[in-house]
């Protein structure tokens, strides 16, 4: 619950963004994000909400941990990988219009 997950914004529709997480597209709420966001920006998603726009210079450094985790995710029961997947699943629920 402490580890947010970065994703790339594909589309913004009011307070909902479609976000790409390594090929998986999910809806993320924008009520909390600290700066205006646009397609192409990266955000940090926590339980279905963007909590930060990741500055352009920091995108690569931010993604590295997650890419390592997902690349090595063959072992079942990896708690960090499970948390990352949970964060992506959290965004799924926001698919309907609110």
């Amino acid at each position, binding site marked *: *619950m*402490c*580890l*947010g997950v970065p994703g790339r914004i594909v589309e913004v529709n009011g307070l909902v963004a479609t976000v790409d997480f390594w090929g998986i597209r999910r809806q993320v*709420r924008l*009520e*909390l*994000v*600290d700066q205006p966001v646009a397609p192409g920006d990266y955000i*940090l998603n*926590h*339980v*279905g*909400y963007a*909590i*930060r726009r*990741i*500055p352009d*210079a*920091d995108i690569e*450094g*931010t993604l*590295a*941990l997650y890419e*390592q985790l997902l690349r*090595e995710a063959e072992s079942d*029961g*990896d*708690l*960090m990988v*499970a*948390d990352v997947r*949970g*964060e992506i*699943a*959290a*965004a*799924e*629920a*926001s698919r*309907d219009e*609110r």
Partner: protein
Amino acid sequence: MSVDAAVRQLRFRDPAAARALAAALGRVTRDIGREPVSVMHVCGSHEQAIARFGLRAVFPKGLNVIMGPGCPVCITDVPEVDEAIALARQGVHIATYGDMLRVPGSSRSLADAHAEGGHIHVVYSIGQALDLARSTTGEVVFFATGFETTAVTTAAVVLGAVPPNFSVLSAHKYIPPVMEIVAEMPDTRVEGFLAAGHAAAITGWGIFEAFVNNHHSPVVVAGFEPLDILAGLVRLVELVRDKQPSVVNMFPRCVSRDGNLRAQEQLWRVFRPIGGRWRGIAHVPNGNLRLRDEWAHVDARRRFTIDLTSLWDDAPPTLAHQCICGDIMAGIKSPSDCTLFGSSCVPDMPVGACMVSTEGTCRIWHQYGSAS
């Protein structure tokens, strides 16, 4: 194992940087000239990363890196779990994060309440709890747990359009006050704190300045990559060595001085901090987040009469009194000090909250091996 061998084994993204940081950590720790030097992190994700990447193998022998009360599920107190169970017994739908299911209340868990016919729903987000409320005519209570990083999402929902059958049972907790409590515990002897990057993304690192002034303990904000953690520890132990109580932000790509002001504004519009118990730790002044009066209509504690007494007739599970989760979360003991750990208390049959949550010290050590 030598540091070089450990670094080779750990598949660091940048082995040369890892080797240099591990060597620096050893050098700075030795500079202090006494052991152990004890520092504490307050984040389940830090412990996950330390255990998963085997970082303890490269920590110097004289450095004790303790996990404090950084698991929001684990510190959710028994009466808070009981409130959710009592509501479920009253026929209310309870939606909550999956880790909460097996956290013990006074006599049973939400999983037990589910087995007894209660309507308990696991959700990944409060949005899924809202969807549930829209799909039923029954009352839906979101049992809201987590630190400020998660509490802001609850706040955003409360400020929006909420279905009339939806309310919030807040067990949200606020990290900065508990650091004060841990710093004052006579048994912990924590000399510095590693603060969690993503929680600090909300509050900003500036919030730790008052803490540093009061307790003369340095605070370093660190990220979650193995190299982030090593670099954060090197800086923290340097500050201990140099007797320099200050706040250093080693995670600028995520954390600013002021944090996320927009999220903070929503957090404090919806919640007020009050004192309350954290399981196993202590009464923490201003450590609990409760809904302000203005949001009484979505506050489950005001909407329902919650009768806990019916839960007190049942005896607590017999092993519960041997559980040392409280001491583990306060950083006084390790899972390996517990007679139940790995035998009577395992992830499939947990006795204490620390074995339930994926951010609990016992669960993490059990998953990745305590030797690392």
